[in-house]
């Protein structure tokens, strides 16, 4: 006989899971108990939301499925924001939650919450497992759904009696057969043909690269495509890292907080090719204006994204890697020199200017220099707020990655994501950049970093305010700083030290760079606090 908990663990082994993030509780104990008998490492985070964020960082760093586990009720509920964050950014996660005994479901017993109901709109799919025998099929399907098509989180809610219940034997299904789930992977040949014609007629094309290019592993094909055609590239926040930051063909991030040159390029183009980008409002604030003067080719694996926010001339549904492969087979196009020169001119003209204040670190130039000092494959995790925009626009990425909560904008993402990324890629530099607001939303993870001895470097941009909202209040609310002053507490250096983590505070770029050089030499975690003038703006 074999128990449900053992089956769950065996399913994870079959799926090649090496590591998961979790926080135990009474009704998930049978699972953790059996997990202890395997080689799968369980990392204890300090709050369940961070289990999901860490699993997200891990999943992104390894292009695999991240796994996070929590108990019923509050444990599961805490995880929701992490799950929703992954959903918005199309990160494949398996979230496993314990649930109260199935015969008590619906009776409001201790730590009972309808987590499948609560997560309905934030998951790609969810299961409430009613009997032990279903577990192998559920796990097989869940991993398949999470990782294929447009990836996303899948929730598996397992009542404790399903974990302790026993069945005769364990057999993991070889194949998945869900009649209603068959994501299309190849672009329709007719649409490919039409797209090639439209490209060939364009005088001023631009490519907008989004997270889908990275998710599908299409970066090499994408590079080949843009090198062959010479089409200028802008990216969304999720698409940062597809292009090296200093590539002359790359104009920068577009959008309300992006580079001006990138927006001007899009607004002057006669053809916009959207690659795995969902035209979020922060990326393109007025899509109707763009389509007035430009044709739009939209390539995405999720048909529901095409035409949702922007009218599309040619929709291509398919996996980015395949579609780019199909286009590459026949493409014979060179971007006119005048357009390339024009774009380059805009790029030069609208270089961002650092805002220097004496006695403070200038965050934009510091991030640019810091990101130039790290390993070329470094993973930068940006939090949410001004720090996110400073990073997005100024990070000098070469072959590295940029992780952030792009869609949901969840404060507190960077530190747990960095934990996940470091565990996934121990040999790479992993840097988390946050503000003093966002850091305080997940600084409890310093404990995880200390206990797991993770060489994660954390930069805290400390301007004693909730900077992004502060800036908004400056612009639209007559500088009435309602509820955005967070003052100079706590002393982050002492706080880090209390976890046994080295830390220092800098008040100029020279000082910050000096500490940065030292911290990068060491193989220990470090918290570098940078005093930033609250007047420094995000763009």
């Amino acid at each position, binding site marked *: 006989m074999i128990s449900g908990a053992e089956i769950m663990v065996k399913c994870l082994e079959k799926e090649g899971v090496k590591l998961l993030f979790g926080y135990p509780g009474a009704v998930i104990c049978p699972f953790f108990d059996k997990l202890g008998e395997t080689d799968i490492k369980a990392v204890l985070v300090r709050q369940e939301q961070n289990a999901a964020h860490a699993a997200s960082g891990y999943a992104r760093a390894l292009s695999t499925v991240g796994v996070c586990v929590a108990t019923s009720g509050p444990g599961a509920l805490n995880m929701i924001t992490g799950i929703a964050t992954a959903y918005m950014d199309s990160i494949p996660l398996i979230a496993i939650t314990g649930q109260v005994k199935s015969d008590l479901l619906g009776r409001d017993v201790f730590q009972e919450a309808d987590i*499948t*109901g609560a997560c*309905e*709109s934030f998951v*790609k*799919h969810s299961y*409430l497992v009613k009997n032990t025998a279903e577990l192998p099929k559920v796990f097989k399907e869940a991993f398949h*759904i999470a990782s294929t098509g447009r990836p996303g989180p899948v929730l598996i809610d397992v009542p404790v009696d399903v974990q302790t219940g026993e069945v005769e034997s364990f057999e993991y299904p070889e194949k998945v057969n*869900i*009649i*209603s*789930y068959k994501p299309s992977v190849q672009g329709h040949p007719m649409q490919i043909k039409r797209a090639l014609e439209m490209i060939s007629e364009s005088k001023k094309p631009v490519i907008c690269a989004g997270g889908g290019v990275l998710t599908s592993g299409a970066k090499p094909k994408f590079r080949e495509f843009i090198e062959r055609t010479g089409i200028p590239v802008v990216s969304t926040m999720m698409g940062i890292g597809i292009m090296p930051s200093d590539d002359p063909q790359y104009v920068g991030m577009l959008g309300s907080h992006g580079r001006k040159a990138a927006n001007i390029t899009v607004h002057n183009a006669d053809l916009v090719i959207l690659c795995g980008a969902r035209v979020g409002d922060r990326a393109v604030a007025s899509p109707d204006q763009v389509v007035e003067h430009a044709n739009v080719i939209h390539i995405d694996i*999720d*048909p*529901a994204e095409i*035409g*949702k926010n922007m009218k599309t001339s040619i929709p291509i549904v398919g996996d980015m890697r395949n579609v780019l492969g199909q286009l590459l087979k026949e493409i014979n196009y060179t971007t006119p020199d005048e357009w390339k020169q024009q774009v380059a001119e805009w790029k030069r003209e609208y270089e961002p200017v650092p805002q220097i204040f004496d006695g403070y670190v200038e965050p934009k130039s510091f991030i640019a220099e810091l990101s130039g000092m790290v390993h070329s494959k470094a993973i930068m995790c940006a939090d949410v707020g001004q720090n996110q925009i400073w990073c997005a626009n100024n990070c000098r990425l070469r072959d590295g990655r940029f992780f952030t909560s792009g869609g949901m904008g969840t404060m507190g993402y960077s530190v747990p994501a960095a934990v996940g990324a470091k565990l996934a890629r121990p040999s790479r530099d992993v840097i988390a950049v946050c503000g003093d607001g966002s850091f305080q939303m997940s600084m409890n993870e310093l404990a995880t970093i200390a206990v797991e001895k993770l060489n994660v470097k954390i930069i805290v941009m400390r301007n004693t305010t909730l900077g992004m909202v502060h800036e908004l209040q400056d612009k639209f609310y007559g500088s009435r700083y309602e509820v955005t002053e967070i003052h100079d507490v706590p002393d982050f250096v002492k706080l880090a030290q209390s976890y046994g983590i080295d830390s220092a505070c800098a008040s100029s770029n020279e000082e910050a760079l000096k500490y940065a050089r030292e911290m990068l030499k060491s193989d220990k975690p470090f918290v570098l606090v940078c005093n930033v003038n609250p007047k420094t703006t995000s763009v």
Partner: protein
Amino acid sequence: MKYTLSVLVENHPGVLSKVSGLFSRRAFNIDSLAVGITEDPNISRITIVADGDEYVVEQLEKQLNKIIPVIKVRTLSPGTFISRELSLIKVSCPAKQRLDIMKIAELMDAKIVDVSINTMTLQFADTLERFETLTDLLRPYGIREIVRTGTVAIEKDSALRK
């Protein structure tokens, strides 16, 4: 404009809540939703009548398709399907008006399923237009209660052959 969508789903618990949750989440307006098992006991059909423009119905179709247990979504084009709604209508009916109401029922092809001293209950299965005609005719007598199932629809083979 009104659109009728015919949605085949896996007959699992929870599927209906996934489908209905979509409407509030994506701010779609629906007039009615009817669900029942099909000829295959593993599959249910949900018939949705929604209000909106082309953009809304395209989005609705695409978002429904994203729900994993949704097997197939079809927006039925006008004139190619038969739609019916079952309704039960309770009308005030003192003895002296019984004959009037019986005449209306006969005229409209409604069935009288219950009679009491003061009321009469009609069963009616027809199109939305005819339902409105019937209720218009009954209103002067005093409609006490209406129970409706929501529209169900089936495609006409005769229309498909054309």
